[in-house]
């Protein structure tokens, strides 16, 4: 049934050298996928240990120092080595060129170089953690991280510095590809929203990450050479470090959430068999999030000692940045209106995303109110808020995209029953883990505390129970995806009845993606009465 003569990008060449020196965007996507899964696993172990530690008010697993190194490891690995690269480097690398009808990214060798930068940065940071870790928190606040911290700060910061260049080069590659390599007929308003979201993410990757590189460089200079840039002993200002760190780190949270929004904008129309509602709104909201995302970083520093004028300005701007997200949520729901909704696994993850991301976004609006922030900043309310956005939003989006494009990437189908069960389990496990933390936050339980007052224990026990359910929810896909690769049924070119260009070629696609470069005649997501109308030159 699978003509032996037809080659796929997997069967073209099989030796190790062809994988490690490949310039095929599809293979580089799989290389990244291996790296991402490895780091997600390590960050997940740290998270589980943290939750075990917090079951009892006193020290449970080890000394306070051990706990401090645990949450620092969890933060660094999850932020820089899983969340930021997750969707752009795996699904972005694999699907984006196919969505715009290109044969590869603009700079294939630069794409491979980005992967090597990512892996070397990752291994340097893992070396720092294995040697003994560091206890500065992923925010490296001055002057603790430069003069008082004892761990392997220099090695870990250098690892992140190297991995940062992988982000910059990937963003650069995507921007130039979307501008110059679109198939004939693929105008900007015929681009699928996932391309627009990855394009907006790349704008942030390119424009924010260099500031992180310089900030980490100054931190290294201060710690290695014992000179004082931010150090108060010489009269320097530690708050300047916070300004420069958050100038990158707030846009970084939009790097994490925008690709997931793109995935959801792809999944919802397909499983509602209905065009995306308000395509122009959703497109320009993605760009607006990327732009306004740069104006709001000061809401991390309301109590840090910045001037009142700045706090007022940042508080107001933080409300503006929520408007595009609200419009997108409304458009996804309006897409389901009068649709033919099928509850496959990707759609269940999409439901989870929309619900949890809305909770995360609205608690963000509550945090942006200055007086409330004074009470709840640096408490578990903030921890719950950003986990609702990152785990409830970005990771749910990652799994939605994974389950949606898995047939195209591997050419195999996966057991639908298990996938749906994993989605529902992850949803309930997640809520049981992080909703009690909102209550803990308003009670005043500070962040990064190993031992806490005994009266908070009930909420921590609930949260830890939820964490174990969430861990099972995330472990299930490993099993049924492995089964799918070995014995899953072959996938057709278009198993979900979708309308993107990537569904017009074989799964898994040939090395050059398309037999001949397709010409595009219609905007994306074209359905009439529930039946997809295909792009030109479709292949059954």
């Amino acid at each position: 049934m699978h003509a032996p003569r037809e080659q796929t990008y997997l069967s073209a060449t099989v030796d190790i050298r062809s994988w490690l020196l490949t310039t095929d965007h599809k293979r580089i996507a799989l290389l990244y996928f291996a790296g991402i899964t490895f780091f997600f696993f390590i960050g997940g172990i740290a998270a589980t240990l943290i939750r075990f530690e917090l079951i009892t008010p006193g020290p449970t697993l080890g000394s306070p120092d051990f706990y401090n190194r645990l949450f620092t490891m969890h933060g660094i690995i999850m932020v820089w080595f899983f969340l930021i690269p997750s969707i752009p480097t795996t699904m972005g690398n694999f699907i984006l060129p196919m969505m715009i009808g290109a044969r590869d990214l603009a700079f294939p060798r630069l794409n491979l170089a980005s992967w090597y930068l990512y892996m070397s940065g990752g291994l340097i940071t893992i070396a720092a953690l294995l040697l003994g870790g560091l206890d500065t928190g992923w925010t490296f606040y001055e002057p603790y991280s430069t003069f008082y911290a004892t761990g392997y700060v220099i090695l870990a910061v250098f690892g992140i510095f190297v991995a940062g260049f992988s982000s910059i080069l990937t963003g650069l590659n995507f921007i130039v590809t979307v501008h110059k390599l679109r198939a004939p007929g693929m105008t900007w308003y015929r681009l699928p929203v996932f391309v627009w979201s990855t394009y907006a993410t790349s704008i942030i990757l390119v424009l924010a990450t260099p500031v992180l590189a310089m900030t980490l460089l100054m931190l290294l200079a201060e710690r290695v050479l014992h000179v004082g840039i931010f150090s108060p002993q010489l009269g320097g200002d530690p708050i300047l470090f916070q300004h420069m760190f958050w100038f990158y780190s707030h846009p970084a949270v939009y790097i994490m959430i925008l690709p997931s929004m793109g995935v959801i904008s792809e999944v919802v129309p397909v499983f509602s068999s209905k065009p995306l509602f308000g395509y122009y709104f959703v497109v320009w909201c993605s760009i607006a999030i990327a732009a306004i995302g740069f104006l709001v970083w000061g809401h991390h520093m309301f109590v840090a000692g910045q001037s009142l004028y700045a706090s007022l300005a940042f508080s107001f701007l933080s409300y503006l940045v929520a408007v595009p997200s609200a419009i997108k949520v409304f458009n996804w729901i309006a897409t389901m209106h009068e649709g033919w909704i099928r509850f496959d696994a990707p759609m269940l993850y999409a439901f989870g995303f929309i619900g949890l991301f809305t909770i995360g976004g609205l608690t963000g609006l509550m945090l942006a109110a200055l007086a409330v922030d004074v009470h709840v900043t640096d408490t578990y309310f903030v921890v719950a808020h950003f986990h609702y956005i990152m785990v409830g939003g970005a990771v749910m989006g990652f799994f939605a995209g994974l389950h949606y494009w898995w047939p195209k990437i591997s050419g195999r189908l996966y057991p639908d029953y298990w996938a749906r069960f994993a989605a529902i389990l992850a949803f309930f496990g997640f809520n049981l883990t992080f909703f009690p933390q909102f209550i803990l936050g308003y009670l005043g339980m500070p962040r990064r505390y190993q031992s806490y007052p005994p009266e908070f224990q009930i909420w921590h026990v609930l949260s830890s129970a939820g964490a174990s359910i969430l861990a099972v929810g995330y472990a299930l896909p490993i099993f049924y995806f492995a089964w799918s690769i070995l014995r899953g049924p072959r996938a057709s070119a278009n198993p979900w009845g979708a309308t993107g260009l990537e569904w017009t070629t074989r799964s898994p696609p040939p090395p050059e993606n398309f037999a001949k470069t397709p010409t595009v005649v219609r905007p994306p997501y074209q359905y009439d009465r529930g039946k997809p109308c295909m792009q030109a030159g479709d292949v059954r």
Partner: protein
Amino acid sequence: MPAFPWWPPTASAYASQINFLFVSLLVIAGLTIGLVFYLLLFFANKYRHGSNADRSGTTKKTWRFEVSWTVATLLIFVGLAGWGADIYLKLYNPPADALQIFIVGKQWMWKAQHPGGQREINALHVPAGQDVRLVMASQDVIHSFFIPALRIKQDVVPGRYETMWFRADKVGRYHLFCAEYCGTDHAHMGGWITVMNPREYADWLQAQGGQQTLAAQGEQLFRRYGCSGCHEPGGTVRAPNLHGVFGGPVPLSDGSVVIADERYVRDSILDPKAQVAAGYAPVMPTFEGQVSEDDLAKLVAYIEFIGPTTSGGR
């Protein structure tokens, strides 16, 4: 504490204002989340694949509804944010005649010094119903003085004074935490705030023993560090006389004018060349590293004490 707390104790009028603001934000957010979840479940059920619901597209374009709904939610939130900003601004300009307590944050303990000279570690006794103004400094890294029951928190950045004020109304014992990560025992750097009615507070002050007042100890330090050698009339070097200076404007050598508050006095002791008073040469040596934070607080208290007496009994 009830069996298991789901709402923090409310110990001041300010705290109840925050409760009210937080609950109203919660209600608005809850309504929006409710609308989203309801629509998700309703559409999922009504328009599921097999159902024969009416899909004729009779409801015309709904973007008008979308724009109005988004703008309405935004306006409500911005209104609440404005209210939050108003409370925030009130938090940051303390009343003039509050009881002033110096707090020094050090790696993994809080030290409080009352005007009467009483000192406490990881604890703070304050009278109920009276404004209390905390002048806080850190000796090493960034800490954060956080009292959940009063809903206030302020990062203490080393190298400068941070001020915070509150008026605790309800008598009782409340948690004190350090909210900014500061190293190994970050979790143990806390204790209890005890709010007592004024009579008990006065007894407590007496019970602490008759140390000299902070200002008196400051006067001794003023002599021991040799400040009196220049800043007293008839001193060897021409230096500004500090009597009656605190709280008032100080013209600087570069023509600008600065109010002599705690920050200016502290900066002038540690970094005298930064803001030289008009008409004087920058000859004062720096005391950086020689005067500890505790002594600094005493010196500042003394200079405040010899400030203009009209600025209210401190």
